[in-house]
Structure formats: structure tokens, C-alpha cells
């Protein structure tokens, strides 16, 4: 049995080739994929049929992924949404997660990562590791004061240089703190870190 059996995935992207490629990958794993060229079509579909996962590109001409996310969040509060974004757009990622995005995928999409995240979102697997608690009762866990300060500014969407300028430290120092934070929370990128943070708040 393929992992995607009986799982319905909606994918929204304005590029037909991308839609086809994603649909091919997911379909090969048994997912029932419905692709849409824009958000409005997807919304119309979702009003008529249920769906287990929505994957949408952020950058689209008529209705962008953020708008679609906010509308979907109003209509289907429990539908997990993965946003597909460009490289390192942290402020947008932070905002998206605050709105209610379940996860991020960075372009160009990779097959394994795509399948991993789709499977994670569509499976209630008890083996799936729980999100590491970053905040417990409002206090950052296992972070030094300096790391806490850096973490807080990361969550504001600040770059390492901006954090260094703000705190009067060298970029190198900020980068070291940032690496420690990533290591402590098993994240390999900022999007994942932000995602874990917001997940811990839920």
C-alpha cells in the first residue's frame, strides 16, 4: 500500500509544468492530486470537496498564496497548508506561520523533501517526533540570554547583519549564536526554526 492511498492533496501553482511534475511525484506515491492554476479555482474546489492537504505556491499573479492561505484558514480551519516559497524569505515565512501555514517548502522542490512533508502532514503517525518545545510558559528553553535575544530577532525576520548592527555585535558572533540555536532545536534552516517555534505555541 502506498503511503498516499486515500489521501487527497490540492496543489496550486500558476506554472503548468510544475503542477504536472508535483502531481506526478505525489501520484506515484498514491496521493490523489488536484492541481489548480490559481487560488480561486482551488477555493471553489474546496467548497465542494474535502481535501487532506493543500500545497500552494506563494507567488502567483491573481491571488497569491498568502491570500489563499488566509481564506482557506477561514473556511477550512483544520486543513493543513504547505506554502511553497522562494529562498529564505523569513519575514513572509513568519507571517505565514502566524496566519496558520503548517509548513514550508523551498523551491526548487525536491522529491524526497516533498514526499516527507506531505506524508508528515497527511499521516497521524504516532512515531512522528513531537515538536521540540521551544517555549515553555513563555520562557525559551535551553537558550542563553544572548541566544534568546538573537532568537527573538530571528523571529522578527531580522537578518544576521541587522541583528549584529542592532546589538552592536559582530555578524560572526550572531552567526555563532544562530548556529547554536539551530543545533539546539534540530533545525537546518530558519524556516524550520520558525515553524517549530510557532508549533510549540499551539
Amino acid at each position, binding site marked *: 500500500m502506498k503511503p498516499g492511498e486515500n489521501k487527497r492533496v490540492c496543489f496550486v501553482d500558476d*506554472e503548468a*509544468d*510544475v503542477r*504536472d*511534475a*508535483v502531481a*506526478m*511525484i505525489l501520484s*506515484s506515491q498514491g496521493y490523489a492530486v488536484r492541481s489548480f492554476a490559481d487560488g480561486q479555482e482551488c477555493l471553489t474546489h474546496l467548497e465542494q470537496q474535502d481535501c487532506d492537504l493543500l500545497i500552494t505556491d506563494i*507567488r502567483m*499573479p*491573481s491571488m*497569491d498564496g*498568502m491570500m489563499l492561505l488566509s481564506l482557506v484558514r477561514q473556511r477550512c480551519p483544520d486543513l493543513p497548508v504547505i506554502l511553497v516559497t*522562494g*529562498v*529564505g*524569505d523569513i*519575514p*513572509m515565512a513568519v*507571517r505565514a506561520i*502566524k496566519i496558520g501555514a503548517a509548513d514550508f517548502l523551498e*523551491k*526548487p*522542490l*525536491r*522529491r*524526497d523533501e*516533498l514526499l516527507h512533508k506531505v506524508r508528515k502532514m497527511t499521516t497521524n503517525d504516532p512515531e512522528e517526533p513531537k515538536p521540540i518545545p521551544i517555549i515553555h510558559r513563555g520562557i525559551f528553553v535551553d537558550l542563553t540570554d544572548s541566544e534568546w535575544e538573537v532568537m527573538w530577532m530571528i523571529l*522578527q*525576520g*531580522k*537578518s544576521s547583519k*541587522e541583528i549584529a548592527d542592532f546589538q552592536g555585535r559582530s555578524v560572526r558572533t550572531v552567526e555563532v549564536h544562530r548556529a547554536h540555536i539551530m543545533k539546539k532545536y534540530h533545525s537546518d534552516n530558519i524556516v524550520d526554526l520558525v515553524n517549530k517555534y510557532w508549533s510549540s505555541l499551539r
Partner: protein
Amino acid sequence: MGSDSRPEQVPDEDGCRNESSSEMQSIHFKSPDAGQASPEFTDPLNLGMAEQLHYFRGLVESATDGLFVLDEQGRFEYANPMGLDTIKWPKDEVLGYHFLKFVSPDYYLQAMKAWQDAVAGNSGTFELEALQGDGSKQHLLIGYCPLKLSGSRKYSINFLDIGSLKSLEHQLRCSQEQVNSLYQQQNYYLHQIERQYYKLLENAGYIAVILDEEGVYVYSNPAAERCLKLEQGQLAGRHICEIMGPEQGPQRLAIIQDILTGNITHFEDLLLVDGKPLYLDIHCWPLPVEDGQKRKVLLFAADITESKKTQEALCQSEELFRTIFDSSKDCIMIWDRDYRFLYANTSAVTFMRRQQSQVVGHSLEEMLAWNPDYLAQWKGRIDQVFQTGQSERVEDKLFYEETEHYSESVLFPLRNGHNDIFAVGAVYRDVTDNRRAVKALAESEHRFHSLADAAFEGIIIHDHGIIVDCNRRYAELVGYSREELIGRNGLNLIHPDDRKNMHGVHQHDYPHPYMSRMIRRDGEIRTVEHHGRPVVWEGRQLRVASVRDITERQKIEQELTETRQRLQELHRQMYMGSMSAFLAHELNQPLTVMELTLSESLQHCDDTDNGRAIRKTIENNLRQIQRATDTIHKFRRFFKMASFDTEQIISIEPVIQRVKMSLMDLAAQIQMDIVLDPSLKDLPDLIFSDLAMEQICVVLMQNAVDAADPNKPNRLVISGRVAEHGVELSFADDCGGVDCGVCDRIFEPFFTTKSGSLGLGLEIVRRILLACGGSIRLVNEQGKGCCFIVRIPFTVQ
């Protein structure tokens, strides 16, 4: 005394030599002047001898004349008390001594003659100088007569003290001698004076002539001949009619007769000599007449032609001055010591609202009777000028005719030829209008000063750098007080490096604004902008300059420039970021497709040689995709879109105002009026980014400016309102709007309808707003205009 006709009897005083007394039977007197014997003495009282003797003795003893009796040898037999007292000899040194003992040797001869005369039986008188007992001498008039006594001849003498008479006689004689001497001296001096007068006349500058009663010149001095253009000696002996001519001569003859009768002593005459007038001032007298000679007159004449001309000129001048005085608008008045008007010009008379006759000769009291205090004041002033002789300048303020009147007067003394002050003059000027004008000027000046002081700019008036005046703002600007600045060289307040330029500006009256650095009192250097121009003030060529402290403005301009540069840099970064995002997106799409399809294909490669070869090829392609992906990542990170500090508390209106300022020049060129609606001021502050807000405004306002038609007036209205969870700004223009066909694409990156534009402006705005949870939308009305509506949340999400 003893020489008169009074009978005398010489008694024996003390019985000594009384035999003479007893021998005195009768007394015979002879008048001294007659020199004849006296008549017989009779006893008129019918007394007895004893009684007679006693009677005569009493008479002699009490006589006030000195009486002596000499015997035949000339020795004194008797002397009465007065006689002894007069000659100041004691009795015992007199009686029995010869009379010559008591006579000054100079008078022996006279005394002996008289003695002989008396011995001859005659009486008489003579003068002698007696030697007195105290050693002094005394002149005495002696009378003598023989006494016919029984048996013997006696001689009586009496004397009169004529010392005083002699002295008077001596003085008279001396006086006569002095008179004679003086008379001689007088004659001498008269002669000398006559000579000197003659010389004077001969050399005198004035004319001297003597004419006889018939009009013939007896004498004339050279001056007379010179005046009449005659040669020396040609005048004497000629008749006045010959000299004066038949017309003038007879008149002068009549005058001579008047002089002779004393009717004329002084007159002025006008002669025509060679056709030219000759004015003479003539003093004349009749000369003493000597027997048998004709009566003569003496005339002294001074040529007063010049003084006459001067006098005429003076009269003309006086008339001129009178005319000037009368035509003067100032009141000119002259008073004597009794405050009586000696003169008042027309203006003064008019001012007093009287006739000339009602003023001149009348007292100041009549004119100022209506104001006793003012009258007293003026009388005091006149008195003071009379006393001090000094001019005095006074000012008055009077209230009449329901208004205040101001006047200025100068009082001055008027002196006669002896330098005595005979009157006081005054020039009175009603300066009410002047005062009002001055007051108005002062008020105007005050207003100007107030205005100047209220000015935001420093204002300075200077004379080649020397400060003549300045306003308060300038004083504040340089840190000195106005009083400290006036008179100071303003160039010293200029930075040394700028002084040369400033000097050049002053030299060439540079008309345009120029900048310099100014050193404040506390040493702070401020940048100022001068704008000066020349002015003429009280005949002086000065320069007035406004001085504006542009330090803050420069600072703001500098900040604005830096902000613009920062914005441009940001813009550039955003362009690049936007471009990189676009490129990344555009590349990621095919890479995604390739990555996914190749990855999926890899799943289907079997373990055959062919399958392994395909796998190898696919894996190689996937590595290239990864490489491309890494490149895109690096590229994207490098050009990552700048982020803003979105935690500032910003006020929207000042940001828009700032952007408007930066576009003003451009807007003016295309006749665009950028209007900021008052509603902007009511908008609440936002937690947002100042730079982001500015970036949004720059893009949207620049778009309107770019869309404007420079051939017609354009308008951009920016307004705002509070919307749900945020603020909504509206940028509405009337620049024709957007073509409906491209309306949907204007937010696409690299889409543009303008040449030379990248088409990223709206993309940037969109991304900024997207990042902060805001939004932008377009309300388009093709052909009319468009309106971009921007929504910004109260807090950045």
C-alpha cells in the same frame, strides 16, 4: 588896629617905668594915611586925671592890636599884652631894648626910614619882617606916629600881622607868574597846534576848505583838490560857482550863509565830479572874524561815497533780508527789553492772527495774555538772553484748538555798534507737522524694528562691514547684544576663510544670495545665507543684508540627501532583490520541474547496465540542478530584498510632507499641485518603518508625477482615513489613469508603460506591504485618473 582913629592911652601895667605913664598928659593922633598931626585930645567923659589914666590903661591893655611906645632913642618903653604875644618875646626882653633887635636885617632900611620919619613928626606905615622870640619871622604892617608928651618925645607904634596877607600876595604873584607862563605856553602850544593842524589838514584824508562869505575858496587841503580832480593850488582863490558850476554853485552859496548864521553845522552833499557821484559828509563852522576881514566858514568833508554805496547796499540787503524774513515761513520776531515787538515778519503776524500794526510796538503781554504761564516762560527767556548774551534754543508743547502743538524757537541777542544788546530776536517754528511726522516716523521705525525683530531672519545694516544697525534675530544669531554689535566690524564675525569672499561681495554689491560661515560669540560656527543690497541712508551708501541661519536647513538637507541616497540604495537593493526574486522564481520553476521529474525517473531505473547508465546520467543532472539551485540561493541571498525596521512609531503626514518636498521641483516643472489633505494630520501613529513608508510614498507619488501631462495643470491629492485594523491612504491623481488593458499587470515585476523604467516600483510597494500585512489596490478611471489605495495595519503582523 592901632592906626585907626580910636584914641588910645598906654597905662603902666605894673608900675615899672611908670614915669612914662605919669608923663602922659594928652594923646595926639594922626591919621596914618594923612601923615598929619592929630587933633587935640579932650576929655569927653569929663573924668578926673586918675580916672582918665585908669580908663586909658584899660583900653590899651585890652586892645586886640599890638601897641608899643618907643623913647627918643628908639627903645621900647611900653608894650601891651597883645603886642608881646604877637612878637612872642617876654616882656623883660622887650622893654628897654632898641626896636632893631626885633627887625629882620632885610628890613633895617625900611625900619630906619620910618623911624626918621616919625622923629620928623610924621606918622605912617611900613612893612617889616619881625624876628620873633621863638626864632620865626613874621610879616607885620607897622603904623607909627609921634606922641607929644610933656617933656619928652615918645613915639607909638602899632602893628598889624600881615603874614597871611603877605602869603596871599605871594601866592597871587606866583599865580600871576604861572598865568603868564601858561599864557605863553598856551600861545606856544596854540602855535604848535596850529602847525600840527595845518599839517594834519595838508595830509588829511578828509577834505578841508575855508570859504569866505562870498564863496571864494580861501584855503583847501590837497584832499579837497584831489576829490575835485584839481591840481594842487588850483582851488584857492576861485569862486565856488566856478568850481561847482552854475547849477550847484548858488545852492552852496546859500548853504554858506546858513553856516555863517549858525543854522547849519552838519550836512551831506552830493557832487558830480566827472559825471560820477561824490558823497560828502560835511561838518562846518563859521570862523572867528577879525577886524576888517571877510567872514569865513570852515568845512570838513569826508568822502562817504563808499560808505554811501555800502549803506545803499546795506539798505538793499536789509530790504532783501526783510523780504526774506517776510517771506519766511518761520515766525521771526524782535523784542526790546520791555518785551515790546520791534519787528514781526508776516508769518509771525499771521500766526498771531493780527495786523502788522497790532503787533509791532505792542507788548508780548498783549499777545500771550491768554496763557499767563507761557507768557512768563517767554519773558524769562528774553530776560535770560538779555542777561547772558547767549543764544538759546527752546522747544514748546502747547495745547490749543483741541490739539497739541509743538514748536521750536531760537532766541538770539541783537547788538548795536557798541556791542550792547538792544533787542532779542527769535525764530519761532511750528513743528507740529514735523513732530507728527517724526512721531509717525518713530512709530513706523518702531513698527519696522518690531517687524525686523519679529523676522525669522537676521537683518543687518552696515557700512563696509561696520554694523550700523541690526535686528534682534541677528543679535541672537551671533550671540551678542544689539548694543555690542553696533559700531563693530561685522567681517570679524565671519569665518576667516570666508572673509575674502565677503569683502568681494561688499565691494561689488553682489546682488545674489551667498553663503558663509559665521562665528558665534561662544565659538560655534553656523552656516548662514546672506542676501544683501545697497541702500542710501542719511546720504551714506550702506548695505542692508538679511542673514539666515541655514545650519539646520543644511543639516536637514544633508539628512535629506543622505535619506535620498539611502532610499536610492534601498531602491536599488529592492530592485535587485525584486529582480533576484523574480529570476529565482523563474529559474526555480523549471528547476523544480526538472528536479521532480528526474528524481521520479531515478526511481524507475533498474539494475541493468542500461538502467545504471541512465541512473548515472540522471544523478549527474540532479547534481547540476543542485548546483544551479545553490547558485540561485547564493544569488538570492546576495540580492536579498532589504528589510526595514518595522518597529518604529511613525507619523504618516510628516513622511508624506518630506517626500512632497523632495518632489517639489519636479512637480513644479510639470505643473503638478501635490495636495496633502488635512485628514492626514488626523491619522494615528503607526508601528511601521519610516523608510518603508517613505519608499511607498516615493513610488506612488513618482508614478503620478511620471504620468502627468506637463502641458496642463495636474493634481495629486493624498488623503487618509482610519480603516479596520489599520490606516488607508489614498493617492488620487488626475493624470489620465491606466489603460484598462494593462490594469491587471501593473503589479507584475518588470511590467512598465514608461520608457526607461524597470517596472519594479509597484512590485516593491507590493512586497513591502505584503511583508507587513498590508495591501495595495488600484481604482482606475481611464482617461481621468487613478487612485492607489494603500492599507497599512496598525501593527506589523
